[in-house]
C-alpha cells in the first residue's frame, strides 16, 4: 500500500516535472541556506576554539591599565602599570598558579650572515612555553638563571627560522643578531599557524624578558603577563586572587576602577565566539523564513493539484477509496515533493559550504546533525503544508467531484 502510494506520488510529480522543480526551489534554497550557514557558523566556532586553544592551557591573562591620549582610549596594556614586583608577587602568592611569564613585545631587525628579517621579539620567562603549551622541535627553552642574568639566548619560531636559515638547517646553536647584539639560538618552536587576527604566530623570536627590556626596548614595566592555572576549575579563583592582590599592591581603595585587566581564556573564547553565534542565529532565522516560504509554495501547488485532479479524486472515491486513502495519497505527494527539495537543498548547501573556504578563506564544517535536521525539517514541512490540501481532497463529495468540469 505504501509502495503503491509512493509510486503514484512520484509519477504524479514527474508528470509536471518543471512545476515540481519550481515548487521545490523554495525548499532547495531554504535548506541550502540552513546547511551553508550552519557549516559556516560551526566552521568559525571550530577555528576560534582552536585559536583560543593555541593561547595555551588554562591561561589567565593580566593586562596593564589603559591610557587616554588626546581623548583617545588606547586600550588595555598601554599604561604600563604592571611591574616586575607585581609579577613576582602574583607568582609567589596566588594559590593555584602553576606557571607565569611576562610578555614584552617589540619588533626588531634580525640578521644572520647576509640574511635579514624583521620579526616580533617577545621577552618571556622560563615558563612561557609550558604556559602556552608550545613545544620545541629542536633544542629547548632557557631557564630562570638565563632570565636572571639577562643572557643573550633566543628561541626561534618556524617562519623566522625559515627566512634566516632556509628550510633544512637546524638553527639551534647558531647565532642571530638582534639589533646587532648576538643571541645564541637554543630552541626551535613547533609551527603554530595563524592567530585570531590572522597574524603568523611562527614569525617570532623569544628571548628572556630581562634581556628584552635591557637590550631591546628599554621598558621598565610589563604590558601584560600570562599565568597558568593548575586546572580549569582553578581559573575563576586564580582570576579573583590576582585581582585582589594587584588592587592591594597598587593601593586602590574601594570605588576606584582597576588599572589592570584580568581575563581568563574562557572569557576570551566566549567574547570571540559571541559575534559568530549571533551571525549564525540571524542567518538561521532568515533561512527558516525561506523554509516557511518554500512550504507555502508547496501548499499552493498542492491546492492547485487537488483542484486539477478533482475528477480523479471522484473516481477514486467512487471505486472505494476511503477519505484516508486520498489524504494519504496527497500527503505522500507533498512529502515527496518537499523531500526532493530538501535533498537537492542539502546537496546545494554542501556544495556552497565546500566552495566558501576556497573563495573567502573561511573554514566550514558540515555537522551530521545539520543534514539530519534539514531532512527532518523538509519532511515536516511537507506534512504541515501538505496537510490542508490533502484534507481538502479527502473531504470532497464523490458526486460533486465526478461532476466537476
Amino acid at each position: 500500500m505504501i509502495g503503491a502510494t509512493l509510486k503514484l506520488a512520484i509519477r504524479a510529480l514527474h508528470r509536471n516535472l518543471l512545476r515540481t522543480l519550481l515548487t521545490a526551489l523554495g525548499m532547495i534554497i531554504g535548506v541550502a541556506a540552513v546547511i551553508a550557514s550552519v557549516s559556516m557558523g560551526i566552521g568559525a566556532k571550530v577555528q576560534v576554539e582552536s585559536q583560543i586553544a593555541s593561547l595555551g592551557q588554562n591561561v589567565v591573562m593580566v593586562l596593564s591599565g589603559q591610557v587616554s591620549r588626546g581623548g583617545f582610549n588606547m586600550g588595555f596594556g598601554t599604561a604600563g602599570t604592571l611591574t616586575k614586583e607585581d609579577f613576582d608577587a602574583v607568582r609567589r602568592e596566588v594559590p593555584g598558579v602553576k606557571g607565569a611569564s611576562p610578555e614584552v613585545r617589540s619588533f626588531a631587525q634580525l640578521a644572520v650572515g647576509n640574511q635579514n628579517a624583521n620579526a616580533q621579539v617577545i621577552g618571556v620567562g622560563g615558563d612561557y612555553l609550558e604556559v602556552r603549551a608550545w613545544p620545541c622541535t629542536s633544542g629547548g627553552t632557557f631557564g630562570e638563571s638565563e632570565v636572571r642574568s639577562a643572557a643573550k639566548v633566543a628561541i626561534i619560531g618556524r617562519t623566522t627560522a625559515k627566512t634566516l636559515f632556509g628550510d633544512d638547517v637546524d638553527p639551534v646553536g647558531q647565532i642571530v643578531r638582534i639589533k646587532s647584539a648576538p643571541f645564541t639560538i637554543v630552541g626551535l618552536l613547533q609551527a603554530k599557524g595563524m592567530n585570531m587576527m590572522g597574524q603568523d604566530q611562527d614569525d617570532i623570536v623569544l628571548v628572556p624578558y630581562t634581556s628584552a627590556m635591557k637590550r631591546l626596548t628599554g621598558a621598565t614595566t610589563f604590558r601584560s603577563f600570562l599565568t597558568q592555572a593548575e586546572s580549569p576549575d582553578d581559573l575563576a579563583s586564580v582570576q579573583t586572587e590576582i585581582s585582589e592582590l594587584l588592587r592591594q599592591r597598587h593601593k586602590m581603595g574601594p570605588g576606584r576602577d582597576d588599572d589592570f585587566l584580568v581575563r581568563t581564556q574562557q572569557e576570551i573564547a566566549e567574547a570571540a565566539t559571541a559575534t559568530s553565534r549571533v551571525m549564525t542565529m540571524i542567518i538561521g532565522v532568515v533561512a527558516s523564513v525561506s523554509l516557511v516560504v518554500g512550504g507555502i509554495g508547496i501548499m499552493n501547488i498542492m491546492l492547485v493539484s487537488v483542484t486539477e485532479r478533482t475528477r480523479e479524486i471522484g473516481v477514486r472515491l467512487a471505486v472505494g477509496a476511503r477519505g484516508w486513502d486520498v489524504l494519504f495519497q496527497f500527503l505522500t505527494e507533498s512529502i515527496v515533493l518537499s523531500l526532493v527539495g530538501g535533498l537537492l537543498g542539502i546537496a546545494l548547501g554542501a556544495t556552497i559550504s565546500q566552495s566558501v573556504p576556497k573563495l573567502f578563506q573561511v573554514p566550514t564544517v558540515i555537522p551530521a546533525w545539520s543534514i539530519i535536521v534539514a531532512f527532518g525539517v523538509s519532511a515536516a514541512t511537507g506534512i504541515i503544508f501538505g496537510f490542508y490540501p490533502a484534507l481538502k481532497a479527502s473531504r470532497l463529495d464523490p458526486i460533486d467531484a465526478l461532476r466537476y468540469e
Partner: protein
Amino acid sequence: MKPVIQLVDFSKTYASGEIEVKAVRGVSLTMLEGEFVAIMGASGSGKSTMMNTIGCLDRPTEGKYLLDGIDVGTLDRNDRADLRNKKIGFVFQGFNLLARTTAVENVELPMLYGRPVLPGREQRRRAMESLAMVGLAGREDHTPNRLSGGQQQRVAIARALVNRPALLLADEPTGNLDSRTSIEIMGIFQRLNDTGMTVVMVTHELDIASYCKRIVVMRDGLIKSDTEVAGRLLASEQLARLDAEQQAVQLHP
C-alpha cells in the same frame, strides 16, 4: 432470485439555499439478481438521485435502501466506500479513466482500495482477465489517449468488473459514443447480463434502453412507469444488420 436492490419509500431532499428541493419523493423499487434495468427520465426527474443512491454515493433522506441485503442508510462514509468497492462497478458517461495511466493500471484501480489488498501479481492477473472479457486483450499497455472512445469505455467496464461486483451501474454509458460503438457497448452489457450479472443503467435514449430487459421511467421524483421491454433488441443482431446495410450501400454506389 434474491433481490440486489431494494428501495422502500425512498425520498431524497436537497437543501439548496433556503428552498428544499425534493428530488425523489417516496419510491419503492426492487431489482433482482440477473436483471438488466434502464432508468429513464428527463433531467430533473430524479433519475440521477436514484443512480447516486443506488451507487451508495449518497444516502436516502427518508425510507430505506438495501443493497444485497445491506442497509446503506446506516453506513458512514468509509463503510459506504468499502461497500462500493466490493459490491458495485461504476461505468460513467465520460469514461473517467486516469490520464497517462495504462489500461491495465486503470483496471487495477479499485483493487488498490480492496480490503485486504491483493498482492501485485494477483492484481495484474485479474486486471488482464477483466480486459480480456471486454475484448481488449493485447491493449493492456495503451494509455487512454491511444484508445478510441469505445475502447476507453471498455476499459472502464473492465475496471467496473475487476472486483467481481454484485451490481454493474452505468450512468449514460453510451452518451459520448457513436451509434455503432454504442451498440457494441450494449452488446458487452448483454453478454455480462447473460452470465448472471445484474446491470442497471441510466439513459435518456429509448433505443439504447431497448437493449435492457426492464425500463423504469421517472418523472418529478416518482416512478411513472415500470415495464418489461417488449421487442428487446439484441446487440449481435443489430450489428449484423448494420453490417448488411453498409454492404448494401457499397454494392449500389
